[in-house]
C-alpha cells in the first residue's frame, strides 16, 4: 500500500484527504501514480494536472520522476504559502 495525502486547496477541491493505493509490491514512478489518480474523474483530472503541483515522498520534496513503493507516504499539494 502507498498512503497518498492531499493538502490545503488541493485537498478541498478533490474532497479527499487521504487515498490508499495498492501497488502489488511494485516500484512505481510518481508520475505513473499521478496518471492513475487523474483517471478517477474529471475533477481529479483537472486538479492533478496543475503544473504548479508539488510532491513529497516520505516527507521530502521530490520531482515527479521519483519512485514510490509499498509503505511509502506520498503527498501532493499546491505551492506553499507559509512564513
Amino acid at each position, binding site marked *: 500500500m502507498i498512503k497518498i495525502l492531499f493538502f490545503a486547496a488541493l485537498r478541498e477541491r478533490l474532497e479527499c484527504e487521504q487515498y490508499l493505493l495498492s501497488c502489488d509490491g511494485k516500484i512505481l514512478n510518481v508520475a505513473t501514480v499521478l496518471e492513475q489518480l487523474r483517471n478517477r474523474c474529471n475533477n481529479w483530472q483537472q486538479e492533478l494536472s496543475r503544473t504548479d503541483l508539488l510532491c513529497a515522498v516520505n516527507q521530502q520534496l521530490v520531482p515527479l520522476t521519483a519512485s514510490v513503493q509499498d509503505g511509502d507516504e506520498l503527498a501532493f499539494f499546491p505551492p506553499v504559502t*507559509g512564513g
Partner: protein
Amino acid sequence: MSIFVAVQSDDFCVASEYNELRQHASCGAVVTFSGLVRELSDNTLHSMTLEHYPGMTEQALIAIAEQAQQRWQLGAVHIIHRVGTLKPHQQIVFVGIASAHRAVAFAACEFIMDYLKNRAPFWKKEHTAQGDYWVEAKASDKQALTRWE
C-alpha cells in the same frame, strides 16, 4: 552550533528567543525576523488559518537550518512557525540567528526565510468579509531563491 525548530499553535515570545540567542559563545551579532498577520488593504481580514503537513514541516525547517549552517559559520539558529487560526497583527513566524559577525547573521536569516517561503509545507487561508480564500503563492517569493543558487 545549535538548531532549535518548533511548529506550534501557541504564540512565541521574541524576548525569550533573543535572550537564548545572545548567550551563544563568541556571538557578536543577533538578527531576528518576525512575520505578522497583515491587514488586507480593504481591511476585511477577520483571521487566517495556517494548515501544515505535520511531520514534514519540522523536517523541512531543520533541513533549511542545516543548509544555512553549511553555508555560514553560525552560533545558533531558532525557527518557530505557528499553525492554526491567527488574527491580524498576531505573530506567525520567527527566525533568529546568532553569529560572530553581522553579515553572516543577516544572510542566514534572509536565506532561511526565502527557503521557508518556498519549501516548508504551510498554507494560509484567509477568512474575510467576502469569504474564505487560499492565499496564492507569490512570484516574488520564488524569485527570491535565485540569488542563493
